[in-house]
């Protein structure tokens, strides 16, 4: 079942690969495919929204299917797999000095389960009755819907199963396969962040599995979990769904901010500020709190009265560990020597954009304020700032950062920087205005049309223009990568001069088995040691 390495490109060695780096690359391909398709849906949606009344479709159901696919594919198909599939898979073994993950074949299985999920998601465009239940799939609508709810449920189940398998695998890897001398307090911040993310996956993915299984049972086997007439309750689903889906946002945030830490430390050539505070206070603080705040999605639907003030407080409390993570990042700049290559530019963007995204979570948390902004464009404003801007910034910046390692080639700085500038401008216009429409006019989300809000039409139009700038940015970024892949100059082994293991102890790109020699670390080795 093995083949020799030297023979150039072999399709079989990719499809059937069990090597963590190649599995990672498969994940990257899958997640960018999802990003691309969901991005196309976003462009269709934005175009439709640019004016009141039918713009490019006169069928609201079509819009609803675009939006369903956009939300589900962006979160489940693109962002989580890019972070916990690609980056975690690629970096973790390299950063801890391991040859591979603990269970290489299970790793490949995780990818293929995720891929099967994508295949199902794509069926959305083929079946006569595409799902239209939004990424949240609330019953009873998802039970009544003429759309194919089963497609949604199985997509979620496959991706969830993939996450659980991946999480077990990487956690076992970090616990068992660290190189001699790699003690816990020498792990890269990114490794800690992915561990936090995977603990969250293991603890909470089971719940979304339960929620969507209940949907299947109710809709297709006639059970009564959500059937009010028979004593069931839709509120059960909402609670179980958000019990997973809130922690899921930290499954995104943690690896994303972990990447920003790596980039920042490398380009500031500096130690990580307050390593232990960041790890044990910041990362594990987020993990500890993430299970007790789900109710902030349900203040006006399913929270018992006594619970609301408690959930408000626990939600606000998340600002504490996240604040520690921000302080750790800024402290890493302090007395650094910052070089603004493309990855660092993305990291710099992250510092500001994540402040907007995170801080706009604070009004959401206040149940009284929420009475207005819940369900309006303010919310997509908030979460696009954290996911579509901040976390995506981390992903794109992270790809630029890993590019020489991954391919052995170097990208073009000018193109890289141009992409960032366009992205920064377009994203702020688009999602800044989105947020404003929600707060100022109460423009509701998931609206195909907005005849009752004529005053926002102009803003919607400008927002759509903003989204075209994002599209332009995406094209520039894609071109810069393709250009580098095809015509890029050969990169140095460690072009950034990083002190982290994946750059210093391996070659670019790393061979099977990762390290030419068994890794052993000296007592005074540290991944962020730039003083020597």
């Amino acid at each position, binding site marked *: 079942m093995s083949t020799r390495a030297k023979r150039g490109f072999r399709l079989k060695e990719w499809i059937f690969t069990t090597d963590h780096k190649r599995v990672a690359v498969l994940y990257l391909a899958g997640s960018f495919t999802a990003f691309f398709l969901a991005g196309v849906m976003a462009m269709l949606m934005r175009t439709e929204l640019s004016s009141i009344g039918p713009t490019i479709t006169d069928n609201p159901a079509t819009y609803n299917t675009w939006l369903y696919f956009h939300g589900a594919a962006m979160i489940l198909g693109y962002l989580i797999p890019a972070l916990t599939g690609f980056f975690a898979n690629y970096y973790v073994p390299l950063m801890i000095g391991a040859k591979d993950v603990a269970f290489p074949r299970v790793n490949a299985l995780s990818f293929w*389960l995720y891929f099967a999920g994508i295949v199902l998601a794509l069926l959305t465009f083929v079946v006569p009755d595409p799902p239209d239940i939004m990424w949240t799939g609330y019953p009873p609508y998802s039970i009544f819907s003429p759309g194919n709810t089963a497609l949604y449920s199985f997509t979620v189940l496959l991706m969830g199963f993939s996450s659980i398998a991946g999480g077990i695998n990487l956690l076992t890897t970090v616990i068992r396969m660290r190189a001699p001398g790699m003690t816990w307090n020498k792990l890269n911040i990114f490794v800690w962040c992915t561990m936090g993310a995977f603990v969250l996956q293991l603890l909470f993915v089971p719940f979304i599995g339960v929620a969507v299984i209940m949907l299947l049972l109710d809709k297709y086997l006639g059970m009564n979990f959500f059937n009010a007439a028979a004593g069931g309750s839709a509120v059960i689903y909402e609670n179980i769904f958000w019990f997973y889906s809130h922690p899921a946002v930290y499954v995104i945030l943690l690896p994303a901010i972990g990447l920003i830490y790596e980039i920042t430390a490398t380009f500031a050539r500096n130690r990580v500020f307050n390593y232990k505070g960041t790890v044990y206070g910041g990362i594990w603080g987020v993990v500890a709190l993430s299970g007790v705040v789900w109710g902030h999605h349900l203040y006006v639907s399913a929270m018992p009265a006594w619970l609301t003030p408690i959930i408000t407080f626990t939600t606000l409390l998340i600002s504490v560990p996240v604040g520690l993570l921000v302080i750790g990042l800024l402290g890493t700049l302090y007395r650094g020597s910052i070089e603004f290559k493309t990855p660092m530019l993305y990291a710099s963007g992250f510092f500001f954009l994540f402040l907007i995204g995170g801080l706009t979570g604070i009004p959401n948390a206040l149940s009284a304020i929420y009475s207005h902004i819940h369900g309006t464009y303010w919310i997509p404003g908030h979460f696009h700032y954290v996911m579509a801007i901040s976390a995506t910034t981390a992903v794109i910046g992270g790809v630029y950062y890993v590019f020489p390692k991954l391919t052995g080639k170097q990208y073009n700085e000018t193109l890289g920087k141009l992409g960032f500038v366009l992205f920064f401008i377009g994203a702020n216009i688009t999602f800044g205005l989105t947020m404003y429409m929600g707060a100022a006019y109460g423009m509701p989300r998931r609206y195909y049309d907005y005849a009752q809000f004529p005053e926002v039409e102009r803003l919607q139009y400008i927002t759509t223009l903003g989204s075209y700038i994002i599209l332009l940015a995406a094209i520039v970024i894609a071109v810069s990568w393709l250009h580098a892949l095809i015509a890029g100059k050969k990169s140095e082994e460690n072009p950034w001069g990083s002190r982290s293991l994946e750059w210093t102890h391996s070659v670019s790109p790393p061979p099977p088995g990762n390290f030419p020699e068994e890794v052993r670390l000296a007592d005074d080795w540290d991944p962020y040691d730039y003083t020597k």
Partner: protein
Amino acid sequence: MSEHPGVGAVDGELVWHTSVWPFLASVGLLLVLPLPFMLHFVYGKSVLAAVVLAAGVVLIILTAAGWVADGLEDVHGYGAGHSVWAMPLFIMAEALIFVGFLAGYWMLRFSASSWPPAGTPAKEYAVPVFMTILLVSSSVTTHLAERELEPERESRPGFIFWLCVTMILGTVFMGLTVYEWSTLFHEGFNLGTNVYSTVFYSITGLHASHVFAGLGIFVCLLIPALRGKVNIPFVKAASMYWHFVDIVWLFVVTQVYFW
């Protein structure tokens, strides 16, 4: 992406490991679950669904066999002994699935105006008690099987014997589930009767599916063992899983049958 031969490596020693089984397993899973389900329940094409399902089952069995055979040879040279670390993590995730269903049950029950809801037949205690006895003793026999492999004994026939006993107990348990379900169906207590039937069938069904999976894992232990191959970490992990299935049953039986 070009391959890098690696520094200081003897030419040809570096290999990109491959395995077809993960890919096939995922195809098999698609064929076994989502596709037939949708074909049957959503599009009403039951014959096609059955064909797809059959193909999926064959594929899954082949894949499992191939995967286990490869694993026993340990072609990759890693993975040794990690499974006893991974299994507890997996069990934790699995346990939370039960917690999720039980939480749904509690929410239903605490908001119900009366319990049990109308349409529920009188409770029958003999069968669940007997099932509990079966499952608890099967946990003991798994333990005995595992003990046969300890260094001081190393008795493969002993292992096979206790493994078979365990599997028989598990199979009888499954049979009783089928018996119980069909009796209840005859009494008119079916999936959609009321919220209790919803809870009852979903939770016992979920548990039964775990027993079934456990039996499947045991088959993957038994066949190689009959041919003289035993992977001890795998045995340990499988037995942990079986104990978990047993312990969960205690929650199921107390919550769903006796409360």
